[in-house]
């Protein structure tokens, strides 16, 4: 970066600091983008504010959603509302990962994200006005029955997984003629085409991302569903699992432990607030920013397991759902309460999320888990 930065000195430092701030707000801005930003600025008239703004925006944003955020940070950074001295371009530090290419620890990133999102809300105890309803289905089992049911759940998950892969193969059977190889073979027969060479499209597997609510109002179900997830992951291989309540934790690795109980212990250890309050919107936002790029493709099925009781900002939830639906192939929302007679999705969070959900289903008993297969199989919208 030295070559670029020399003629600008102070500007370089400011641009780097600006880039870091953008990144803190979730934009995909790394060292490479910072270098591009400097190159861009060296190509325009730096005394022209609008031109600088346009140049930086062209280089540092990469999707429409970035634009508003960029404007905000730009305004705040280069034109702070307070006195210019104390808040403006600050003494910058070198990009923390300019050299080693390592990302900052996930915990820190999450903390940053949350610091930006939490708007002075007190952590609330579990939101559970529906406790009595949970007595009916999964939660009605005794400890002994639970073991039996666990076995059943795992069996169902296996079946779901194998059927899924078989179905994939059947639809991909169509073969295409490989003309290049056909011609090559025919050479040896003086140009007579006798055998056709085929090539086959690679089998594309469904990728599943599971976002499970483990807050108080979901506690009973989630403990159960985690077992289902666990079995599914083992059978399917391509499942990413994350749990959330007031914050989000990726537990895919912990779930891969061979021993189920060990895995659950691991999860309990990792998740700081098993059974705390719920911030669905904020958690989804963290998911989109931190993992969205790697996990979401048009072939991804996202399954959210939650009752939709959000103690956070509903608008945050709605915005996150819009983005989730756009970036994933299909969004399935499993709400255990849906199985309760007379339940209607009237809580605010559920209502806000519903328009952006492709399939809204229950997950309160074994039958409903079986039906999950149908939803998983239809991969694309």
């Amino acid at each position, binding site marked *: 970066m030295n070559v670029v930065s020399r003629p600008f000195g102070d500007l370089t430092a400011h641009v780097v600091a600006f880039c870091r701030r953008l990144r803190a707000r979730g934009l*995909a801005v790394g060292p*490479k*983008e910072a270098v*591009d930003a400097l*190159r*861009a600025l060296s*190509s*325009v*008239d730096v005394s*022209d504010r*609008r*031109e600088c703004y*346009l*140049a930086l*925006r*062209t*280089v540092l*944003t*990469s*999707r*429409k959603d*970035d*634009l508003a955020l960029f404007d905000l940070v730009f305004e705040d950074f280069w034109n702070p509302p307070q006195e210019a001295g104390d808040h403006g371009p600050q003494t910058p530090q070198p990009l923390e990962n300019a050299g080693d290419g390592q990302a900052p620890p996930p915990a820190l990133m999450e903390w940053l994200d949350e610091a930006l999102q939490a708007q002075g809300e007190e952590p609330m105890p579990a939101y559970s006005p529906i406790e009595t309803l949970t007595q009916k289905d999964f939660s009605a089992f005794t400890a002994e029955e639970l073991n039996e049911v666990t076995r059943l759940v795992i069996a169902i998950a296996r079946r779901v997984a194998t059927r899924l892969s078989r179905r994939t193969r059947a639809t991909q059977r169509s073969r295409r003629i490989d*003309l*290049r190889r056909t*011609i*090559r073979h*025919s*050479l*040896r027969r*003086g*140009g007579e085409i006798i055998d056709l060479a085929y090539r086959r499209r*690679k089998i594309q597997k469904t990728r599943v991302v599971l976002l499970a609510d483990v807050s108080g109002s979901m506690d009973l179900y989630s403990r159960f569903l985690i077992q289902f997830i666990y079995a599914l992951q083992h059978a399917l291989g391509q499942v990413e699992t994350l749990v959330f309540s007031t914050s989000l934790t990726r537990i895919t690795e912990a779930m891969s432990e061979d021993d189920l109980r060990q895995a659950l212990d691991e999860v309990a250890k990792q998740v700081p607030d098993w059974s705390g309050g719920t911030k669905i919107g904020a958690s989804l936002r963290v998911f989109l920013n931190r993992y969205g*790029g790697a996990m*979401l*493709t*048009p*072939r991804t099925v996202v399954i959210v397991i939650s009752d939709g009781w959000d103690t956070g900002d509903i608008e945050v939830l709605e915005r996150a759902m819009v983005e989730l639906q*756009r*970036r994933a192939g299909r969004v399935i929302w499993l709400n255990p309460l849906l199985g309760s007679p007379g339940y209607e999705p009237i809580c605010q969070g559920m209502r806000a999320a519903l328009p952006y959900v492709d399939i809204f289903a229950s997950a309160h008993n074994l039958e409903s888990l079986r039906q999950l297969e149908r939803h998983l199989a239809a991969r694309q919208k």
Partner: protein
Amino acid sequence: MHPEITRIQSMLDAQGYVADQTLATSVYLAIQLRKPLLIEGAAGVGKTEVAKVMARALDTDLIRLQCYEGLDATTSLYEWNYQRQLLHIRLQEHSDIPLEVREREIFSEPFLLKRPLLAAITHHKAPVLLIDETDRADEEWEAFLLEVLSDWQVTIPEIGTITAQHVPYVVLTSNRTRELGDALRRRCLYLWIDYPVFEKELAIVRRKVPGINGELAQQIAAFMQFVRRAKLDKTPGIAETLDWSAALIALHRDHLDQEAVEQTLGVLFKQREDAERIRTQWLDHLLRGVEETSREPRPWSQQTIDRVAERVMPRR
């Protein structure tokens, strides 16, 4: 403004493209930094046009690759001319040339069909490569494209590795029917083209529809601003505005009224439901908007339109 940006803006202008500073800056940086430019925006806002005009402004060729679902490496990079190969094999059926030589012969450049990506790489002068509607191709192809964009070289097993002599200027467009991957996005500069504001649309109509009278042009531009506030399946873009203007002129209309609009609704709205929705729910509001605008002091601006819309358009 940087003189080069001004130059590009006037070049775009000379080519008949009404470009604002945002667009000119992005095009300039794409040329200057030699990075692909990703342009997103609704259909009909002139994304594809940018590449065409850029090629003309740079005085180079435009190579266009239209994406579609199922587009694969073969169809976008190269293919062997099988018919020609077969014919050649037949012609040499009884010759004494050894097999290996014959094989080498039919897998050499004269038998190669260059598809857009290879054509761009082997072009004698850096061309503008337009990858249109990238969102329609699938992920696998996107990954393949990313590879081409980073290395600018391709390997053809029978011939060897071909490296670009001149790195093309790349413009990608997307209608956002599918979200493009982050890796591809990060490789590109980004430009979002929104529907034009009143002033810009008016300028475009005046430029592209020669002989239109000033009053009608202003009414059309105002009407379009109001129309885009209606809830429709397919909001009309600039292409529709221009078609509509041409249609109105062909019918010898010199101002907008109910009859003129109803007669030409099909030009503006490509979906029957939208046309119907406009006719039954919106037309009165839209025409009142145009009428009230004409009482506003001139010249009209986007602010004028916003003010009038506030009064006449139903709230969502």
